[in-house]
């Protein structure tokens, strides 16, 4: 067992700079999820931990061991690829036992370990088949099986579930999490599905354009996003952003929008008349159907899902989303009041995007 340390790592492909000084400290046994938009360098970072990609500068340690120049096979890691990368000319059993075979384990031991892993993953019936004879979900399991037979120090996952349908994805999510808890290895999991990130992670690493934006526990990242990017990226439907200038007096604070609308804000370090972005999540906006309190807005669309309703309305000419569990009867064009829960309002500096 070992943690992973990434220290000030840079990476460029020729003149394309992909990672700009990334540092992460992973504890032993931690399940770390890397999220970020497409092309932000998640796979690159993962592949560098695996040793498949060279490091331009910086250090990567697995446990206490510097692995910058250690070959992938000697890093004691296992990786599950998005494409699964099963060996097409080998049966499921051979695929799963390949790493043990390469380590010259006894045949009997290999058979037993593979059988046990196959049992855990529900693959026992399929051991003699070839990858082309399996469904997508089954292939995914074989890829998992190949990773767990070796009991590596570190698991690396690169969007392992993105090729599965929604239902299977939810199921595998739970299974992976259970497997991780059982095995206790450190895991790095790349995804751009934020539900996966929120539900699976011990800690989330949010990346954008090769820079780490925030590292923290899922709810911590959700509740106190450290900048505008994280605030907008985490959470679905996303946070509402309203621009304006900070106003304060001795005991309260507001944000004044360009049209004069006053938004109630929590006390922050914002200077008077500093340009800020006012962020409020849909569930922190209470809807007043009678339009007697709060910020006046006009209903545009409602999206009922059965469980809840999303109400999109226009507030000072900005489209704003509010979330409610009530079954509201709202018509298009109807005025409503939106009451922000001030304790759950975030202010960001408009120029730097930093949380205030």
């Amino acid at each position: 067992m070992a943690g992973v340390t990434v220290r000030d790592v840079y990476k460029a492909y020729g003149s394309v700079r992909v990672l700009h000084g990334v540092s992460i400290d992973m504890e032993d046994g931690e399940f770390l999820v890397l999220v970020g938009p497409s092309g932000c360098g998640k796979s690159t970072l993962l592949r560098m931990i695996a040793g498949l990609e060279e490091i331009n500068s910086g250090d990567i340690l697995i446990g206490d061991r510097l692995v910058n120049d250690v070959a992938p096979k000697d890093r004691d890691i296992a990786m599950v690829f998005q494409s699964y990368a099963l060996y097409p000319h080998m049966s499921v059993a051979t695929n799963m036992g390949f790493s043990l075979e390469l380590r010259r384990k006894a045949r009997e031991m290999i058979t037993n370990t593979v059988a046990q892993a196959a049992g855990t993953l529900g693959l026992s019936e399929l051991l003699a088949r070839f990858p082309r004879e399996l469904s997508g979900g089954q292939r995914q399991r074989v890829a998992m099986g190949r990773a767990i037979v070796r009991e590596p120090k570190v698991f690396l996952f690169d969007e392992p579930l993105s090729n599965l349908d929604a239902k299977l994805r939810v199921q595998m999510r739970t299974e992976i999490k259970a497997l991780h808890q059982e095995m206790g290895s450190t895991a790095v999991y790349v995804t751009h599905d934020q539900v996966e990130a929120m539900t699976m992670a011990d800690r989330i690493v949010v990346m954008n354009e090769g820079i780490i934006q925030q590292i923290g526990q899922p709810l911590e990242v959700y509740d106190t996003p450290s900048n505008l990017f994280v605030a907008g990226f985490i959470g679905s439907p996303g946070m509402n952003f309203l621009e304006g200038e900070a106003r304060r007096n001795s005991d309260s604070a507001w944000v004044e929008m360009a049209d004069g609308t006053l938004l109630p804000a929590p006390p922050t370090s914002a200077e008077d008349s500093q340009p800020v972005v006012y962020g409020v999540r849909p569930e922190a906006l209470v809807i007043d159907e009678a339009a007697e309190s709060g910020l006046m807005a006009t209903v545009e669309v409602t999206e009922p899902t059965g469980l809840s309703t999303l109400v999109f309305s226009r507030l000072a000419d900005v489209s704003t989303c509010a979330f409610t569990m009530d079954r509201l009867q709202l018509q298009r064009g109807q005025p409503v009041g939106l009451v922000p829960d001030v304790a759950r309002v975030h202010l960001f500096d408009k120029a730097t995007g930093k949380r205030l």
Partner: protein
Amino acid sequence: MITVGQSKHRRWALTAGHGVGLAIFIIFAIFPLFWLVKISLTPNNLLYSEGITLWPSSITWDNYKFALLGSRFPRFFFNSVIVSLTSAGVVTLIAAAGGYAFSRFRFRGKVPIMFVMLLTQMVPLVMLIAPIFKLMVPLGLTNNLLGLIIVYTAFNVPFATFLMQSFFDGIPKELEEAAMIDGCTRLTALRRIVFPLTLPGMGATLGFVFTAAWSELLFALMLINSDDKMTFPVGLLTFVTKFSVDFGQMMAAGVLALIPACMFFAFIQRYLIQGLTAGAIKG
């Protein structure tokens, strides 16, 4: 109702047309072979006397007997086997190594090298005969099977390399990466994962070079002048004498010469049609 009938009719006509088209194509392709066999079985005295018939009134194995026992054909055949197999083997090895490098590595000069290789394919062979002859004479490589092997290898490597490169390109890189994480070095990954998956490609390359070398006449004619070094395309010409052409024997030799090529393709076709990488990545 009428439309259904019509469309049924139409479909039937389409199927029939399809069949007829295929049949015409097959007859067109097979006919020369058939003629080859027919003439090789026709007794000499009937060849000119019977006129043009689809099948002679009597057949004979004499031409085969002569080709196998009475002529130098077995020698030519043997020489051809040596030259073609060796060229095919050597080319496939070089092309596999080169194709892998082109497919997987980035290195300085990659583009210029590929460009030069393409360029070599644009020069007509006839233009090269004189310079090659000039080069080979002082090296003692004329009238020498090794000389032919070298020439065939040199000419086939560029195309074969591109062919192999495309086969390597078809094998997902992740397979090797997965193998390297599982415990392979790049070389073991190559041997255990990539090599088995490129067998179809190697088969195709082998077959391609083999047939090219097997039927090559120009350089064989130029570089070889003694009977015991001749490959069979040159050897076939010995059936043409100043005074006559011995068609029956020549055709019999020709039929015999087809056998290895047929065997070869029968052997590798199973690799050619199998999509070996099926199931490697998501389905």
